[in-house]
């Protein structure tokens, strides 16, 4: 009796984050059960009398190791341990002690899962560290999943991607085992892997009705034709992530064909492999077709380019919603962003040149009426332009992040004043981001300070003015 209560409490305390009705259900059943136990007054068979449904529920809250311990309590619990519901999802963690601080899934457990539960698996992910051994182990497991029907599969590199180092044929044959056998794959995340066109064809041939999500950023062996084949036949595809070199007008048109469901997310990584790389352009008409077909779709673009590689981008309207510039980007390009990205929701700029971004920000505030999040790293902005920008965007700016050291004080606002001026317009307390100065304690005349005072004669940084 006591022990049952203990279980109940455990499950309650640990399920406190679950919706109330679930808790109630558990509690109700348990108390019913307790009554029954009291009535029978037996102790031996009590455990066995917990209904499977309830056991299952409790077990779901337990980590695998605890479930394994619990399974040694009695036969019923042992049976419960093996209930298919508990094995629908599994995350294989494959790490080598030499390359990772992380624990790994025990090989015996892996064996047991393949032997007893592979047909129950539906949601499977592999977290793999940076060693080739781990990636190969993942491929070995994949190739043994012959009698299962997976709905989701994720191959995740927690550190340097290691699947690229596995022999391509080995990887492909393992992956196609899953593609061929599952037939109902809905979500597939295979970023940074050597997946290729023929294997995508196998995927499409077996899972075209069910595929909804495909993430394959940085898969160098896939060609634009390969991904086009997926888009052509998987009409339920709603989320797609890929690199820019796979993006084509045809792909966008295929995704916006009448048979195709509305796209929800499209994530594009634009990565430069070597400096001066040439990038193709996407026609405005293709983007227009996309927006017409899926008016609410999010276009997330991450740029990792050299400054001089931006030529083909942002010359015409792009329906981008989330924009990230991982490297320095010129004032000119940001000016074009202000003109051609009317759907922009989030803009993150890691760095730009030394000239302040003032007009560009104002332009962005004016034209990007959806903008609600902005992050600026090494981008100099004058305080008054920044305040003006915030004022124009107002309270819709739910995320606003800028480094304190890039805000240039001017005749209107000092650094000390800007925080509350901005807060006023945002309607909430706001501070610029700070970096620790780590005990510098040196003296030097700053050329930037000098430059500034040259630019703005009569501008002296004053101590805080007394209140008006």
């Amino acid at each position, binding site marked *: 009796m006591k022990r049952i209560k203990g279980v109940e409490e455990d499950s309650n305390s640990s399920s406190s984050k*679950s919706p109330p009705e679930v808790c109630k259900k558990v509690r109700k059943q348990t108390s019913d059960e307790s009554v029954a136990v009291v009535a029978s007054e037996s102790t031996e068979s009590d455990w066995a009398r917990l209904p499977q449904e309830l056991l299952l529920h409790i077990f779901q809250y337990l980590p695998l190791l605890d479930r394994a311990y619990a399974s040694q309590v009695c036969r019923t619990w042992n049976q419960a341990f093996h209930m298919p519901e508990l094995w629908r999802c599994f995350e294989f963690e494959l790490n080598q002690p030499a390359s990772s601080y992380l624990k790994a899934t025990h090989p015996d457990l892996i064996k047991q899962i393949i032997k007893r539960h592979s047909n129950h698996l539906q949601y499977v992910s592999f977290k793999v*560290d940076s060693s080739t051994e781990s990636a190969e182990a993942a491929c070995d497991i994949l190739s043994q999943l012959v009698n299962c029907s997976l709905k989701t599969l994720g191959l995740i590199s927690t550190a340097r991607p290691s699947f690229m180092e596995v022999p391509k044929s080995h990887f492909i044959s393992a992956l196609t085992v899953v593609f061929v056998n599952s037939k109902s794959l809905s979500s597939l995340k295979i970023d940074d892997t050597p997946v290729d066109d023929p294997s995508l064809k196998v995927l499409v041939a077996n899972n075209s009705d069910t595929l909804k*999500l495909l993430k394959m950023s940085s898969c160098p062996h896939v060609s634009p034709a390969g991904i086009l084949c997926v888009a052509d036949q998987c009409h339920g595809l709603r989320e797609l992530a890929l690199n820019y070199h796979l993006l084509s007008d045809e792909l966008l048109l295929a995704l916006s064909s009448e048979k195709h469901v509305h796209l929800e997310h499209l994530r594009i990584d634009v990565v430069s492999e070597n400096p001066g790389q040439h990038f193709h352009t996407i026609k405005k008409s293709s983007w227009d077709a996309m927006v017409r077909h899926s008016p609410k779709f999010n276009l997330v673009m991450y740029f990792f380019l050299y400054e001089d590689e931006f030529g083909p981008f942002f010359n015409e309207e792009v329906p981008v919603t989330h924009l990230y510039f991982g490297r320095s980007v010129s004032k000119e390009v940001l000016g074009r962003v202000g003109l051609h990205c009317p759907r922009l929701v*989030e803009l993150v700029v890691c760095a730009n040149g030394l000239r302040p971004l003032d007009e560009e920000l104002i332009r962005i505030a004016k034209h990007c009426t959806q903008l609600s999040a902005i992050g600026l790293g090494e981008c100099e902005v004058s305080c008054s332009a920044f305040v003006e920008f915030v004022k124009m965007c107002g*309270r819709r700016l*739910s995320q606003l992040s800028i480094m304190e050291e890039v805000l240039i004080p001017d005749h209107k606002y000092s*650094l000390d004043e800007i925080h509350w001026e901005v807060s006023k317009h945002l309607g909430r307390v706001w501070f610029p981001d700070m970096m620790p100065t780590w005990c510098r304690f*040196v*003296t030097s005349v700053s050329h*930037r300070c000098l430059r500034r005072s040259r630019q703005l004669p009569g501008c002296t940084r004053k101590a805080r003015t007394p209140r008006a």
Partner: protein
Amino acid sequence: MVVNSVHWFRKGLRLHDNPVLQEALNGADTVRCVYILDPWFAGAANVGINRWRFLLEALEDLDSSLKKLNSRLFVVRGQPTDVLPRLFKEWKVTRLTFEYDPEPYGKERDGAIIKMAQEFGVETIVRNAHTLYNLDRIIEANNNSPPLTFKRFQTIVSRLELPRRPLLPITQQQMENCRTEIADNHDQLYSIPSLEELGFRTVGLPPAVWRGGETEALDRLNKHLDKKVWVANFEHPRVNTCSLYASPTGLSPYLRFGCLSCRVLYYNLRELYMKLRKHCSPPLSLFGQLLWREFFYTAATNNPNFDRMEGNPICVQIPWDQNPEALAKWAEGRTGFPWIDAIMTQLRQEGWIHHLARHAVACFLTRGDLWISWESGMKVFEELLLDADWSVNAGSWMWLSCSAFFQQFFHCYCPVGFGRRTDPSGDYIRRYIPILKDYPNRYIYEPWNAPESVQKAAKCVVGVDYPKPMINHAEGSRLNIERMKQVYQQLSHYRGLSLLASVPTIQEEAEPPMTDESRTSSGPDSPPKGPADSEAADCSTAPDSSTVCAFSTYSPYPDLEGATNSHPSQTPCAYSVSHTQPSAAITSASASQALSTAAPPSPASTPTQSSLSRFKPSSPSSSCPTMSPSLSPAMTMTQHSFSGQKRKGLVSKVRCIQRQRGRQSCTPAAGEVERRAEEEEKEREEAGLEERMEQDVEQDEERMEEETAGHQQ
């Protein structure tokens, strides 16, 4: 009764502003100044030659200053626990004095020493002089936990009284009263060891860039007490090429070893500022750099695991890579990125690098490029950096690797662009990597991109004479920003597409009750609805794709987004979401943290939750499951404001009440008048009390409240 004092120097290697040394002298018949070091241990410890040299020079300086006072420094070889009992007996010690060490390791060691001294009937006196403030008071003022944002820290500090004024150096007369006979064989018994004795090879050792010792520290300080630029620079440090080089006026190593008292620096700055600015009280930002030091000391003082990821309650668990080969390349300056290599070379040669240079190499090693744990980097800094305080070093590394203190992580320093922006000419590179000296400016930050003819002309072919870049920065930062996002989304339970929203908001930051204010001003009868509500409704920007491909309704889903967390016992999921959301599998917008959220925190996680649980997941759906997932963090803001109110000091509480009263009982105009009067009074107060901190964050906030309220009226 005879009083025989021993003053034990550790840090605080100075005679000026040394309160506990004064205590040692106070009424004593004899005083001996002792430094204990273990030469056997020295060679093995993870401390580089430059740091040892600096320390030995500081000891020499101390000894020669004591000589002038007819005393000497006693350097005793061995471990404190062995040495001190011996000395107690030998010298018939009755009083032991040492400076308070706020770091966990030091506190533990000192606790044992105090206990042992008690057993010997020796009185111990400990005084704090290494930090400006009493750290425990800061923690106490912040509801018994160290502040986790610098702003919060500043607010707390601005409410404390000014740091204690520094004391004068000890005088000959003081020393005269407790003169101790110096034996003829003092130099044999208690001399300062040489680097050779510590096991270092000194052949070919270049002269020190930083000379250790109190004398040098005070020289440096006095050199520019008349310079206006100094103050301006302290206030808002800016960078240029020159600041990358070791400055003849840099002070940080002297603070680290206590050759310079931080209080002396503090009051020097303060007085200089007031002289220049006509008696204005200086803003807190003037002391920014000193305060950062205090900030990290405060964060570390009760956290013995502050220097590691595991078991450190404020540290985010990030699945760093283990890669000794890459780490060695970074540490030895062989990354193939001249900017990074030059910095690491300067660090190794001179023991100091500019703080932005620190940012650059730390970012490169951790979240920027190599994805190697900050702990490894911290150890390298500890070995090489003259000014590496345990707390400041670990804290800064956590900060820069975005492992704690939750700042935005989107900003990665580019190992090419950042250097070029700081020093367009590349002269810094040429100085520390002479092999690249003939490269044209255009390619000096990226020699691998130079045409072969240029490489040959510069007599340095990449891949032969200088390494190729060890990583493709574009590709590396693409991967790493994704990983950081995964880690942070798991913490914040945010599932949308926004990168910026992935960072959890820290509860303590959302302090000032703006919304609270406006609620009050809208009258007692109005429904409790702050402006943030309407605001929240407006910014439903993050699309919720949880409908994309829902599977079963109750089972936990595999976490396909999260590259995450292998230490589930440390996952801070105190506020986890549970499975209210029939969420999709690996949709970008929904799946992030499936397993760890659906599963309850394991019992093992409870001890670590306490501190991280204060970070409020920025997604409101996690804090109140009934809310629409589209609500923005602004909502959380409103909730926080109430708890923030509690923390306000008594004075401000009173002020607050007054204002509210004024607003509710009077007509708006009358309220306005009353507020004016109050403000004027405040101004008078400020003018009168010079000691008051000018830059009071809280005041600012109140000012803002008033302003807003004014608008609404």
